[in-house]
């Protein structure tokens, strides 16, 4: 009888283990399907022309998405310029002043900001930038994406800075190093891997955002380097082409999706490498 119980328990263990393995496999299935589908439909459109040429008119064969690639690049640069310094400084403030009303308020706002739907942020950027400047522009798109990046950067900066031991700060201050230099030259370098990870993750997060760009960057069929004019972006192009009635455009949308997914994938891999390589041991 005793023996039976033990073997029954072992069996239960095995069933449970099998169940866990099965479910974790199921959880990666959606990603595999998505990747498979995008690769299958997208890879045929990828060639040098696709990456370096402008889109052609309906009925003409070929054409590329270079305007969208450049547009996404410019939008990301603008949003990084806006969000990275602000996010890191706010993160420093939060980790340096853990208690206190202002930091409580800041933390709350950052959390709420993180939860605001991206379409709403798009509308805000439309009201603030597009309406006041009178035109759709890359700048307004960058503002919208920057607002979306901000909470991620603030939180990751704060969390990594909190992990830097207080002894390190003391060591620097005890050498007579002024506070601002201690933060910039001792604390920030020690937390660099975490901060860069946060920035890359936030970039990966906003690269595929369509909603905030719909009425800010707006999209453009032309190559544009002027940040005060409408600009194309990968997700916008995918949205416009995928909803069009033309099969040629559908295949371009698939190709663009492929490029977008690969870009985000590479960003995620770089993030992992950065975390591993630059990790500072305390």
């Amino acid at each position, binding site marked *: 009888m005793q023996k039976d119980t033990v073997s029954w328990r072992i069996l239960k263990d095995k069933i449970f283990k099998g169940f866990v393995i099965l479910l974790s496999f199921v959880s990666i299935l959606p990603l595999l399907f998505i990747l498979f589908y995008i690769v299958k439909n997208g890879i045929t459109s990828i060639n040098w022309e696709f990456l370096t040429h402008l889109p052609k008119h309906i009925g003409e064969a070929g054409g590329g998405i270079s305007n969208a690639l450049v547009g996404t690049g410019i939008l990301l640069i603008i949003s990084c310029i806006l969000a990275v310094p602000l996010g890191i400084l706010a993160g420093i403030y939060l980790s340096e002043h853990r208690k206190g009303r202002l930091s409580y308020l800041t933390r709350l706002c950052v959390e709420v900001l993180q939860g605001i739907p991206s379409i709403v942020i798009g509308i805000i950027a439309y009201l603030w930038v597009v309406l006041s400047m009178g035109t759709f522009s890359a700048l307004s798109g960058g503002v919208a994406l920057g607002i979306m990046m901000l909470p991620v950067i603030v939180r990751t900066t704060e969390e990594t800075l909190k992990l830097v031991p207080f002894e390190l700060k003391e060591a*620097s201050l*005890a*050498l007579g*190093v*002024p506070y601002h*230099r*201690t933060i910039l030259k001792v604390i920030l370098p020690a937390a*660099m891997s975490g901060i860069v990870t946060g920035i890359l993750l936030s970039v990966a997060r906003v690269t595929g955002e369509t909603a905030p760009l719909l009425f800010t960057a707006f999209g453009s069929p032309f190559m544009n380097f002027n940040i005060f004019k409408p600009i194309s972006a990968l997700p916008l192009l995918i949205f416009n082409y995928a909803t069009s009635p033309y099969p040629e455009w559908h295949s371009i949308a698939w190709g663009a999706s492929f490029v977008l997914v690969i870009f985000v994938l590479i960003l995620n891999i770089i993030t992992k490498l950065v975390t591993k390589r630059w990790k*500072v*041991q305390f």
Partner: protein
Amino acid sequence: MESTVLKIEDLSAYFSEERILKDVNLSILRKRVTAIMGPSGCGKTTLIRCINRMHELVPGAKVSGRVFLDGKDIYTMNPIIVRRKIGMVFQKPNPFPTMNIYDNVIAGYKLNGIKINRNEQDRIVEESLKKAALWDEVKDFLYRKGTFLSGGQQQRLCIARALAMQPEIILLDEPTSALDPKSTSHIEELISQLKKDVAIILVTHNIAQAARVSDFTAFLYLGELVEFGTSEKIFSVPEDKRTEEYLTGKFG
């Protein structure tokens, strides 16, 4: 010729409303080791953190009284200058993890933006590491990270870092409490070497250590300076009953 480098007058320290130190008066001599001993929580660490103005960094901390370094009240000086003149080594070795050994030693100059030429830097690094008795062990890999060193080596690296600033006083806050016996005796030998150049204030809860390395000993109890005198005297014929009880292990 013995001269006073540091004079503490009626020093009291507070954390919010709690009084940690009560009217401490103390004179520290040049080229001597002064040990501050006492049971945990008696204010030893607070006392030395008042000397280089690190105490005031804690929110709610307050200090009253005066501390004279070479006759100048440090509480009227810029704390940054005070901390450059009074080096500190902490309980837990804390080399800068992002820097190599060389940069760790010269960190006081680099982080402060003090410009000195390469030869001068090399000289300071070598001299400081030699003084800290670490040169022979690390001279072949000065450009490797300081964090792979053993605990005792890291602590000596921190001592070298403090020495590089050519301070007048070095504060050692229980520098051996996180180390094994061998590294501890290393550091103690080092302390006896170092006193040729600087005044050393050593905080320790280890009575034997205070007896081994110090010239003068102060006994601190419940924030009060109970007794201060030559180590010889304190450890053989203590005046105060509390000192005697502490030394014989009645408490602490």
